[in-house]
C-alpha cells in the first residue's frame, strides 16, 4: 500500500529536518531547524499537529527519551523517519526534481 496522498510542503520540510537531525530530532530541534534553514517562523501548535499526522500516516515513529533539568525533567520524543516515510519523501523529491529539470537558470538564486 502506498501513501494515499502526496506530502504537503510543510510535511516534507518536517521529514527533511528529522532526517538531517538524526538523534537530535526532537520537538525543540525540529522547530529550530525549520526556523533556521527554512527561514519561517513555525507555530509549535502546527508543528505538533503535523508530527501527529505524520505518525498516524506511519511516516515517522518516535521513542521517549528522558529529559534534563533544562526541561523540568519532562520526557522528550525523539523522532525517526520510517521506511515508508523515506519512500514518501523520495517520491516527493523525485517529482520535484522532474518538474524542475531544465529550469536551473530560472530557479537559481540570483542574489547569493
Amino acid at each position, binding site marked *: 500500500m502506498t501513501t494515499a496522498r502526496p506530502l504537503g510542503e510543510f510535511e516534507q520540510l518536517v521529514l527533511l529536518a528529522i532526517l538531517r537531525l538524526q538523534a537530535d530530532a526532537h520537538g*525543540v530541534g525540529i522547530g529550530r531547524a525549520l526556523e533556521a534553514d527554512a527561514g519561517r517562523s513555525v507555530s509549535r501548535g*502546527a508543528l*505538533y499537529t503535523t508530527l*501527529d499526522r505524520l505518525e498516524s500516516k506511519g511516516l515517522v515513529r518516535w521513542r521517549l527519551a528522558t529529559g534534563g533539568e*533544562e526541561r*523540568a525533567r519532562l520526557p522528550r520524543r525523539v523522532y525517526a523517519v520510517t521506511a515508508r516515510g523515506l519512500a514518501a519523501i523520495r517520491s516527493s523529491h523525485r517529482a520535484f526534481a522532474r518538474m524542475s529539470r531544465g529550469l536551473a537558470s530560472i530557479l537559481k538564486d540570483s542574489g547569493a
Partner: protein
Amino acid sequence: MRPAPPRLARRMLDAVLPRSARGDTVRGDLIEEFGARSQVSPVRARRWYWRQTLAIAARSAVGRTVASDPNDPPVNRGSAGLRDLVLVDLRSAAKALIKARGFTIASVVTLALGLGAATAVFSVVEAVLVRPLPFTDPARVMWMTEVFADTGATMSISWPDFLDWGQRLHVYADLAAIRPTTFNLTGGEIAERVEGREVTWTFLHTLGVHPQLGRDFAESDDRVGAAPVALVSDGFWRTHLAADPGAIGQRLTIDGASRTVIGVLPRGFRYNPLANDAVYLPLGATATEDSGLPDRGNHNNVSAVGRLKPGMTEAAARRELADVEAALEREHPDTNATVAGQVTPVTDRLANGVGSVIATLFGAVAVLLLLAAVNVASLAVARSVSRRQELALRAALGCGRRRLVGYLVIENLLIALTGGLAGLAVGDGLVRALVAAAPPNIPRLDEVGLDAGVWLFVLGASIAIAFLIAVLPGLQASTARGQQALVRASRDDLGASSGQRARRSLMVVEVALAVILLTGAGLMARTLRAVTTVDPGFNPTQLLTVRFSIDGDRSTPARVELFNRRIVAFYDQLLPAIEALPGVVATGAAPSLPIDGANWNSVFVVGGQPVPPRALLPSAAFVPATPGLFTTLGIRLKAGRVFRASDRQDAPDVAIVNEQFVRQFLEGRSPVGQRFKQGWPETPNAWREIVGVVNDVKLNGVEQDTPPEVYLPMAQEPASRSALVVRTAGDPAAMLPAVRAVFAKLDPLLPLFDVHSMDDLVNTELARQRLTMLILIGFATLALVLASVGLYGVVSHGVSARTREIGVRLALGASGRQVVSLFVGQGLVTTAIGLATGCAAGFAMARFVEAQGLLFHVTARDPVAFSTAVVTLFLVSIGACYVPARRASRVDPTVTLRGE
C-alpha cells in the same frame, strides 16, 4: 535560577494538553525552548511562550488537539466540528462587514443610539426601582400607616394604636415605629438644622442592620425618663465627629437637650433614600403625657415597619392588620371609627412614586430600541438583496438553510455587539447628562451608573436584536434555491422586488413606532404647557422663603401659654425688622406655603348646621398667617377683609377661607359672618367667625386639586415651626444675608433652613414633567431621524433597483415630474399605512401614560399631539422620498436601454 514560563500560560497549557507522556513531551519542549529564548530576551521569550500556548489552545478549541494519541477514540468531534464552522463563519463575517463599510457603520450607529438610550434608562430603572434597599432581605419588610377609612388619605399611626399592634400583630418577627423629624443641633460652632428620625428601639433590628460602631438602641433607652441617647449616621460621624472611633460616649445638644452618642450606623445605610438622616433618637422616650403621643385620637406622623415571619405573606399581613383595626374600632369608637390600616411593601413605598415616570420612559425606550432594530433589519434586507448572488452561490454550493441563517446570525451578532459596545459609551454619557438634569426628588439617583446588570442588559438586548434582524433577511435569502437563484440573481431588478416588499413592511413598522414616540413627546409637552399655565393663586416671582423652628417647653398648660406668648412676641419683633430692610416690599409668615404643601389638616364643625357623624366631618387645610402674608404672596381678597394687627389673642376669634371652602361647605350662603370650630365636635376650641374670603391657592402643588383652605391669625394660633416669606424688589437671593442678620440679632441660636426662592419651588415641582418631556422629545427626534433615513433608504433603493423600468418609462414619453410623483406616491402610501397603524398604537400608549397619572389637563386622545405627530412625520417623509425620487427623474433613458 532558570526563568519560569508565565504561570497563567502554563496552566492554560496544562488544561489543553493531554495528561500523558505525549503531552509532557510538548510541555517539556516549550519549557526548554523558553529557557533558551530567555537567554536572549526574557520579554520576547514570554511573548513567544504565550503565542505558542494560544496557538495550541486555539487548535484544541477547534478539535485539532495537539499531542493526542491517534489511537484514542475521537472525542467531541461533533461539537468540535461546529466550533470549527463558527470560527470560519466568524472570520468570513468580519471580512464581509469590513467590505460593506457603509452598511456596517449605518447599522452600528443606529444600534449605538438605540442601545445607548436604552442603557441610560435601564441604569436609572435598575438603581431606582430594582436595586435592593440597604437592608437585609428588604422584600420581607412591610411599611404600615393608618388612613382615613373612607378616602384612603394617609393620617399616620396613633401611638397607642401602634402599641396595640405590637401586642396583637403576629405576622411580624419584628415591628418598629418611625417618625421623621428635623432637629436643632446647637453647641457646635454654628447652630444648624439636621434631618433625622425618632424610632422605637427595634428599628435597626427590624431592618436587619447593625451599627458599625458602638451599640444599637436597647429597650431601656426607649422609655420615658431614660437617659437621652442618639445614634448617628456614617455621614454625620464623618462631618461632625471627625470619623473618630472615640466618638461613642460624646455628647450632642439636640433640640436644647444633651444626648450621648451610643452608636454609628453603617456606611451606605439610609432608611429613606430621599432623606439625609443624620440622627436617630428613641421614639418611645418622647411619649410623655404632654407630647400628644399617648392620645389615641392624635396621629402624629408615625409610620411603622415590620419584618414578616418566615412563611408569612403580604396578604396575611393585610388581613391581620384589618382584623386588629376592626377590633380597635370596636374598643375605641370615639377615636378609631374613621381609621383603617394600610400595608405596603417598603420597597414600593420608598420608590416615591417615580415608578410611573420610569415605567413610561422604559416603554419609550423599548419602542426606540425596536425602531433601531427595525431600521437595521431594513438595512440588512437591502444588503441581502444586493448580495443575493453571494448568498445564492453559498446555497448552490450546498450551504443549507440552517447553515445560512446561522452565518447571518453570526454576522448580525458582530454588528449588534459592536453596536452594543458603542451603545455603552453613548449610555454612559447619557446617564451623566440625566443625573445632572434630574429633578431632586428621585431616590438613589446618585447611585446610578453602568454596572454588571447594565452590561448584561446590553448583551441580552444585542443578542436579541441580532436574531431579530438575522431571521428576516436570512429566511428570505434561504428561499433562493441553488441554480435557479443564481440565474434570478443576475437579473437584479427581479430579485429586488421581494426585498422591496420586505423593506416596505419594515418601513410601516418604523413609521408606526415613530408616531408613538412623537405622540408621547407631544402629550408631555402639552402637559407641561398646561401645568405652567395653571394659575397657582399667588405670584411666585421675587419671593424669598426661609424656614425656622423655635424651641420651647410645652410640658404644662401654663408653659404652653408662656411659650405661645414668646412666639407671638418673636413675630412682633421679626416682621417689622424685616419690613424695614431696604429692598423688602412686603413680608409675612405661615407654617404652610403654597406648592410646598399643607402641614396642618384638620376636621371642623360648621355652625348652624347639623353635626354629621365623625366619619363625615368636613376637613380643610389650616394655615396660621400673619396679616402681611396675603399681600406678600399676592393672594387676592374676594370678600370681607384680611387680618389686622388687632386680631390678637384677646380679640374675637376670626378666620379667612378660600373660595373652594365656600363652594364646598357654605354653598348658597353669604360666607362672611358664618361661624365654624376647628377640631372634633367635643373639642373645647373657640368658634371662629369668617371675616374674609380669598382666592384659591395651589397649596399642595400645581397639579393637585386646591383643598379648602382656612387661614387663622398667627397671634391667635401661634406656630413655632414656620416659614418667613419676603417679597423683594430685586433678586430674592441677594436679600438672604440681611434676613439672616435680622434673625441672628433676635436669636443667634436659631437655625434657618429650606431657603428657597418661590420660583425654585415651582420649578422643582415642574422638573419631573420637564425632564420626562425632554427625554421623550430627544427620543422622538431620534425616531424621526431614523424613520426618515429608513424611508430615504427604501425609496432610493427602489429607484436604483428599477432604473431600467424608469428608463423605459422615460423613453416612452413619461415626464420627469410623473416619475417623481410615482416614487413619492409609493413612499407616501407606505408612510400613510404606517401613520394609521401608529395612531392606533399611539392611542394605546397614550391611555397607558394617562393611567400612570402623567397627563395634566390633556386627554389620551389629545388631537393636537396626534395631529402634530402625523403632520410632522408626513412632511419629513415627503422630503425623504422626494430626494431619491428626483434622482430617478434624471435617469438617462438611452444609457439604461443600451444596457439591455
